[in-house]
């Protein structure tokens, strides 16, 4: 059951990563004129259209993470400590706190992205999106490293 939830957690994280990456590129590097290339089309996305999906995906991914967290605490963290894998443990601790701060950011994020978009919130909207992208990318990479850690440093 935990394995199935872990896989689902990972799949939701992939969807979330894609959505926040598109939105961040769309808001920081918007395309001007016709977008014909792959990168150009990525820059031309309507950033606002991702906001609600990102909130739902973030909540679902974090909730699943919270459900499987006790199994990690009992079975994985102990092994990391025994193997003296300090930075891997620290990276997860940071992930835990960053994800929580991201949860707390979601209400303001929703407010900044609600329609019609307020011009005076453009900077806050862009920075908040970039911060969430940083949190999601960090969490995704750390999750993968820890999932594979016994394979490359045991």
């Amino acid at each position, binding site marked *: 059951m935990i394995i199935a939830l872990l896989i689902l957690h990972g799949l939701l994280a992939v969807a979330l990563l894609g959505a926040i990456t598109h939105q961040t590129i769309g808001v920081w590097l918007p395309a001007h004129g016709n977008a014909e290339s792959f990168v150009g089309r990525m820059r031309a996305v309507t950033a606002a259209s991702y906001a609600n999906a990102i909130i739902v995906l973030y909540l679902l991914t974090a909730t699943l993470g919270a459900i499987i967290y006790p199994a990690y*605490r009992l079975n994985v963290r102990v092994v990391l400590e025994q193997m003296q894998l*300090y930075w891997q443990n620290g990276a997860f601790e*940071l992930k835990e706190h960053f994800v*929580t*701060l991201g949860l*707390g950011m979601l*209400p303001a994020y929703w*407010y900044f992205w609600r329609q019609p978009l307020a011009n005076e919130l453009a900077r806050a909207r862009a920075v908040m999106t970039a911060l969430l992208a940083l949190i999601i990318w960090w969490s995704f990479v750390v999750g993968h490293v820890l999932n594979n850690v016994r394979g490359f440093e045991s």
Partner: protein
Amino acid sequence: MTAARSLPTFTIAFAILYLLSVEFNWALFTYHPALEEFGLLAQKPKDGPAMYWYGWIATSAAGAFVIAAAASRVPAGSASRLRSGLAWAVPLAAMLAFVYILRGYFTK
């Protein structure tokens, strides 16, 4: 201030309260995963590790909700631009604080 305008206040308060909750272990409850038991407030580990993370989130969310609700009664004024800036600056500062607090993991 409307309820929606108080959402950035929630974010600011949540980040501060979460940092304080972790630093001073203000967990509203503790989870003992080996026993699958919950206990009120921060408790010592029993037969395995104790998990405070859920309790820290509960403390921070409850406190931030109260602060945001109180802020929603204050008339909207010129502080709204400041509040929008703080809504990302305070969580960013909290993230940097956690990097500092946890630096020992990366220097061993």
